[in-house]
């Protein structure tokens, strides 16, 4: 080993995993023969000692406690925010799932009615009293009392009939199950109109029209709807 090789290695002599046993022996042998390199080695060892002492002296150096407090506060804020976001996402996901289930249920129900109606040889009559069935959407509220009775009759009849589904409360209804002073009106609706009432029927085209009965409250607001089989109109 010569002096330049020694200078390549002597700084790493005490560093674990850098200089192998054989190289270490060569470095020490060279230092025994070369006074200049022996001096460098002594100085390097002294520097190692001083650096270790400095490192030990600074072991307890730490940032002030206020930094930890501030960071913990920041951590709480960051995680409170993400928890809020998680809850919002969960609510949104649940609402979407509920809407999809409702839409699926309605379209299945409608499909069953349509296929049942088509499969039947005899045309069923609507389960509504003729006086209600012919009522226009702009039902006059002057004959509200008689209508209320008719509504009850219509409901009882319709429950026995396959040509109309049960009334489904509309999303914005005040009290969808109350028919006091209200009226049932039969209307024919297109798909976009059904969708606007919260009934997204998927198995019909935009131009198809489907009959439905709507419970209209005394103030004229739609409260509930039921779909009526197409055959019921014939």
């Amino acid at each position: 080993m010569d002096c330049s090789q020694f200078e390549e290695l002597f700084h790493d002599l005490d560093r674990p995993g850098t200089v192998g046993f054989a190289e270490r022996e060569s470095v020490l042998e060279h230092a025994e023969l070369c006074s200049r390199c022996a001096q460098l080695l002594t100085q390097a060892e002294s520097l190692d000692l001083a650096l270790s002492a400095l490192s030990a002296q600074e072991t307890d150096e730490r940032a002030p406690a206020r930094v930890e407090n501030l960071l913990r506060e920041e951590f709480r804020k960051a995680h409170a925010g993400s928890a809020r976001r998680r809850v919002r996402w969960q609510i949104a996901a649940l609402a979407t799932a509920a809407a999809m289930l409702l839409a699926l249920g309605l379209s299945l129900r409608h499909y069953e009615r349509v296929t049942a109606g088509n499969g039947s040889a005899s045309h069923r009559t609507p389960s509504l009293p003729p006086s209600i069935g012919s009522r226009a959407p702009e039902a006059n509220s002057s004959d509200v009392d008689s209508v209320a009775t008719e509504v009850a009759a219509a409901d009882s009849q319709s429950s026995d009939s396959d040509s109309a589904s049960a009334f489904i409360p509309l999303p914005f209804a005040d009290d969808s199950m109350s028919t006091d002073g209200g009226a049932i009106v039969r209307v024919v609706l297109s798909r976009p109109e059904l969708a606007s009432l919260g009934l997204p029927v998927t198995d019909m085209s935009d131009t198809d029209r489907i009959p439905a009965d709507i419970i209209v409250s005394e103030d004229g607001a739609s409260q509930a709807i039921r779909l009526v089989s197409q055959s019921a109109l014939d």
Partner: protein
Amino acid sequence: MEMSQKNDLADDRLLRRMLAGDEDAFTDLYRRKHPAIYRFALHMSGNAALAEDVTQEVFMALVREPGRFDPTRGSLGAFLFGIARNHLKKRWEQERRLVPIAHDSDDLDDFVASLPSGTGSGAAPASAVDDLDSLDTIGRVRRAISTLPENYREVVVLCELEEMSYEEAAAALNCPVGTVRSRLHRARTILLEKLREPRAARRVSALGK
């Protein structure tokens, strides 16, 4: 190496708990990791307030963007040192006056040549540095480190004072292991020369009288 792996595993467990929102885990992680970051920033800046700010910013980044840490690219410690280093560099650009940098270049040759007595390859040392472990000398070593060029100072702090391996330091500094090794050798050579300097100067002064 085994110790380092155990530390990494402990850090990993704490980090996972922290990501799940466990504040105690974050506190433990901070208490484990922040002293080294603070000391590094203190040595690199020579300014306690700046070191405090940098430490805060490093862990703030961990809180706000924990996803930036990629364990396949190195240990958490190396990642945090990397952030600290970037923050220090930004600060230095803003406040150059706080940095006692003697030399910005990675090329030591010019710097060593500018020193008053011969050093490093070829030149024989002027005198023995025989009392480097005394308290006075520890203070001199600290001052000598603070005057090292930035590239050399950071490897001395990481490899000598924080006792990182070359591999860990290379990950923290985002450079090859060979670069860390050569910078450390040069840094140690400069330190030895700087520590001889006052004695030589004193001797010359005494002879003059």
